[in-house]
């Protein structure tokens, strides 16, 4: 089972990323303990030189981390046909006890790696390495998580057995299941829709306000996080049923299948990108007091906010069009 191109790519990618991050961690500890831009010591000059290489390598590692989430979910969906009882990625991920923990950790690492890339991008725009310490501190947080992710993925893929009878998405997202996800799905439709559209509208308004005035960055960042949760809740509770045209089918994974025109990709890619960049806007604000970033952060923050708002708007548009053009009728006229 392990000798499949996607699995080999995921494991090798994760191994390389883990080795790179662990190797960079040693350098990170040195930076956190010894970095002093005011000093011209040999060590300081050496750290200044090495940070180019380490940051570049980490940039690649974090980019691999972002892309690998997509590949992980895509692979899980593709492998569903190999397990009895699996209809989509949920069945594959349920095939052993490491599937969902691996996915959860990949989601966490996706956001942390994304935030690292944002910090690195902004740090590179300052002439005095303004974010070097926060950047390497985050790297030290990432290192054990990435190593654990590799371990979980390895355990998950090695533990996959073709003769396992697994559970389909109905057992997790169906209204009879006793899970948080099923509770999301069992919320009254109108309530879910009101929550979803209210939160998404507030998120977009907060974003537009920030773009126009440069104020309210923290609010926009908070709304990006809340909007992301509301969006996932919206997909599970009602967007999915309109896409599947089935009132009890709440799975958020089936949407990435060809049978549903791969609509999950234009839903999730803009959503995840928007949430990441929106959170990034808030994450950068504490550093705007730094002299070398005083002009950079407002500019970069605004640019991130524009892309984030566009991402949320695209997600909302795709979701709304899926509902409008669905043959499922849930409300009587």
């Amino acid at each position, binding site marked *: 089972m392990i000798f499949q191109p996607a699995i080999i790519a995921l494991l090798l990618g994760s191994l390389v990323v883990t080795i790179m991050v662990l190797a960079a961690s040693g350098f990170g500890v040195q930076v956190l303990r010894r970095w002093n831009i005011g000093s*011209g*010591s040999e060590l*300081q*000059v050496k750290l*200044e*030189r090495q940070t*180019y290489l380490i940051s570049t390598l980490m940039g690649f590692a974090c980019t691999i981390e972002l892309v690998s989430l997509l590949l992980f979910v895509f692979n899980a969906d593709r492998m569903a046909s190999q397990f009895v009882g699996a209809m989509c990625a949920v069945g594959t991920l349920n095939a052993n006890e490491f599937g969902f923990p691996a996915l959860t950790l990949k989601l966490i690492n996706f956001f942390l790696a994304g935030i690292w890339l944002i910090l690195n991008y902004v740090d*590179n725009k300052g*002439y*005095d390495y303004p974010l070097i310490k926060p950047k390497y501190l985050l790297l030290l947080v990432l290192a054990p998580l990435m190593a654990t992710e590799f371990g979980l993925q390895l355990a998950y893929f090695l533990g996959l057995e073709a003769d396992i009878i697994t559970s389909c998405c109905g057992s997790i997202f169906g209204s009879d299941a006793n899970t948080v996800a099923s509770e999301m799905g069992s919320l009254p439709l109108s309530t879910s829709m009101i929550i979803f559209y209210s939160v998404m509208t507030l998120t977009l308004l907060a974003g537009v306000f920030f773009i126009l005035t440069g104020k309210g960055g923290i609010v926009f960042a908070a709304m990006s996080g809340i909007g992301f949760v509301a969006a996932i809740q919206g997909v599970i509770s009602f967007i999915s049923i309109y896409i599947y045209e089935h009132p009890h089918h709440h799975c958020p994974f089936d949407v990435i299948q060809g049978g549903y025109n791969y609509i999950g990709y234009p839903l999730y890619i803009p959503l995840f990108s928007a949430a990441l960049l929106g959170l990034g806007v808030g994450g950068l604000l504490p550093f705007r007091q730094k002299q070398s970033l005083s002009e950079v952060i407002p500019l970069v923050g605004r640019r991130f906010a524009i892309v984030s708002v566009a991402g949320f708007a695209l997600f909302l548009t795709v979701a709304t069009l899926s509902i409008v053009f669905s043959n499922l009728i849930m409300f009587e006229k």
Partner: protein
Amino acid sequence: MIYLDNVHKIFNQGKVNEFQAIKGVDLTLEGGKISVLKGPSGSGKTTLLTMIGGLSRPTSGRVRLQDRDLSSLPERFLTEIRRKTFGFVFQQFNLIKGLSVLDNVMVPALPTGRDHKEVRDQAAALLGRLKIAHKSGARVEWLSGGEAQRVAIARALVNDPEIVIADEPTANLDSALSEEFLEIIHGVKQEGRTVLMTSHDPVVCDAQVVDRVVSMRDGALVDGHQA
């Protein structure tokens, strides 16, 4: 003002062929003056000059321009400083063969995004000032040593730099051409620019236009030339 603070440069550090080219130089160079780093071959003057110009970095120590630390700058910022603050005249001139004189002078201005016509006009004006406008269209490989050096000086000035750096500028010139070069450099100084040169040529070191001579030997300043 250019400040060097305990600058060391070691090549091939940690290897059997390790070589300490600069040994803890502390030096302050005044702006708007002509300074010469003087010393025998291997004394470290060119190494020091390249570190001041941001072409290489010290192994330890700092190089500051006014209140800005040049040696700690990330490469992308250093490139910008090199491009706009410094003008370089290399010993071998390093003109690009196959290009015309005018194109060679324009080259450093191309990455700045300035208006092409404006750059062309400025390059032509510089060539006129250096009395070599009649060679604008000629290929640089057809030029004599003195002409090539004028072109190199024009190229160094095209981005209107605050500091002009020249490495052994008279090494390939006879005495008459060396005097001519010093006249040009005097004009550059009168425009308010700082000029920093390396040389062991007495014509340069003893010239009246030179404000300061800093002697070097074995990678260090010779006594009496500290700071």
